[in-house]
């Protein structure tokens, strides 16, 4: 039992350390450890050492840590959402977050909303758009006091289609390069914008969401036997569905605001986890989270190195690596 818990933790720690080192500026793992120690002790160093510290603080640490947290959050969100809507193909973005964010951020850029916020302009606009899309979907899916899961699933698809059309419309009407670039970010995702300044807030918020999903594992299990059955097993089904969807909306919204819509992690990690350890949420949820976090930071490492100094969207890497891997496991298991 201890081994089963220890292995993912060790792999995660190892992956995080590795990803701190990979990138255009070379840092060996040992140098990274030394740099971290110097920073903690506020000690100085040579010019090269200072450069390494700057790269770590400005870029690698925030994007790796936030990347890991976002990966965990999207994967657990996906795992729970798939259970709530009884569909293994569900992904947290079916709640409309990424296209909601894309359309409002693109429009915000074109119209100059919140321009005074500087680098936070896009995240704020995007976050608001994601929140608005998901809030609308939540209210739209309410039916006599309960959340209709089918309506949620199909409504989300409708909202995403609408958002997508809006984005293209805005680009056509305001053909400026930065607007087009922004769209790619929202729909494919990227961790380059992650900053140390809000790292703790994001970590706390995402950790709280993931933990909440985790502690309800028994109820989630019971829900897989159907909503009626779960009710007869003492699960407060209506309440649970609403709170879970809200929590998933929050974690998706936060993820989207920081790093756009990184596809595939929320879909593949939970399915992979179930292939490895079975459906029981007590096992599959932590394994999903672990896989999501680890896979995402490795994909980000690839995204920033293969065509360095040009970065490609991390969402493209997750899909290119995750797609075949997923197909391979699926064929082996089913």
């Amino acid at each position, binding site marked *: 039992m201890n081994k089963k818990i220890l292995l993912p933790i060790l792999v995660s720690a190892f992956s995080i350390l590795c990803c701190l080192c990979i990138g255009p500026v070379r840092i060996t793992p040992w140098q990274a450890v030394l740099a971290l120690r110097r920073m903690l002790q506020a000690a100085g160093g040579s010019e090269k050492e200072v450069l390494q510290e700057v790269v770590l603080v400005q870029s690698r640490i925030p994007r790796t840590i936030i990347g890991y947290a976002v990966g965990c959050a999207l994967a657990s969100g996906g795992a729970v959402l798939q259970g709530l809507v009884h569909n293994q193909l569900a992904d947290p973005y079916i709640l409309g977050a990424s296209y909601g964010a894309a359309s409002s951020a693109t429009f915000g850029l074109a119209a100059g909303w919140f321009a005074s916020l500087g680098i936070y302009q896009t995240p704020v606009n995007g976050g608001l758009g994601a929140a608005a899309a998901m809030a609308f979907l939540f209210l739209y899916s309410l039916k006599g006091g309960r959340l209709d899961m089918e309506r949620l699933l199909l409504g989300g698809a409708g909202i995403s289609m609408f958002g997508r059309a809006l984005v293209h419309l805005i680009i056509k009407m305001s053909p400026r390069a930065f607007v087009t670039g922004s769209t790619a970010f929202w729909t494919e995702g990227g961790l380059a914008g992650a900053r140390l300044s809000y790292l703790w807030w994001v970590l706390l918020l995402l950790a709280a969401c993931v933990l909440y999903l985790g502690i309800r594992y028994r109820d989630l299990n019971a829900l897989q*036997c*159907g909503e009626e059955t779960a009710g007869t*097993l003492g699960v407060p089904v209506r309440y649970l569905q609403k709170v879970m969807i809200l929590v998933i909306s929050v974690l998706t919204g936060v993820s989207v605001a920081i790093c756009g819509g990184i596809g595939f992690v929320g879909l593949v990690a939970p399915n992979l986890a179930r292939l490895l350890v079975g459906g029981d949420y007590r096992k599959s949820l932590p394994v999903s989270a672990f896989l999501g976090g680890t896979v995402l930071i490795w994909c980000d490492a690839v995204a920033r190195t293969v065509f360095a100094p040009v970065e490609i969207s991390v969402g493209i890497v997750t899909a290119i690596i995750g797609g075949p891997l997923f197909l391979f496991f699926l064929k082996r298991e089913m």
Partner: protein
Amino acid sequence: MDKLRIEHLTCAYGKRIILEDVSLLVPEGSFVGIVGPNGCGKSTLLKSIYGALTPLAGERFLDGTDMKKMNSREIARRMAVVGQENSVTFNYTVEEIVMMGRTPYKRLLEPDNEKDRDSVQQAMARVGITDLAKRRYTELSGGEKQRVILARALAQETDLVLLDEPTNHLDISYQLRIFDLLRESGKTVLSAIHDLNLALMYCDSIYMLGAPGGLFCGPAGEVLEEKRIRGTFDVNCSLENTKEKGRKVIVYYGGRPEKEVEHE
């Protein structure tokens, strides 16, 4: 004492009224059956008792307490349900499904303890699925699945069990074994039953829905008599004596009651 008491229940799907002013009593320790033709509202009645449907009107009392004043956990510790819904989304093992029966007893994050594991093992042994414990639920046959669901209800360790045609997919041996088991367990049972002979054999009292004069209830032998079965189900039948003294069996002659069959 009455385990379950339902008073003046009215249920509807949209504007179509399915059940009107139904009252029902399940005395402690009794085996009560609900019979009736397809679409007469057997499942609707059960569903509105266990709360999957909200009735338009009526009161429900469990152990003398108004069920509106109990939360779903409290109810789940006193009443287990074997419904007709038995599909499961992900790949769970049989043991994991049966363990779900322990849900109403567990606090947040409380791990499974010895008591839970015992109760799961016992439940599986009683319905004869111990060998299947590690198998995936989705790979089982219909009859095996049904027994798993039954084991889950047994692991819930409730005094009252509600069943909606629990022997649908079972071969005759398991049909009898399951009903024997339920009757010997000392649990109070309320079950919708398709097979009238099984109902006649096991039930203390029977509620017949969809009978010409409306709901009819009474001891099994009184409810299930030739004329009433003929009128309710539109079939030609007779009750015959068996070798076992005092036990009768329903024999069917065809689905058209106007063609009377001569019999002694």
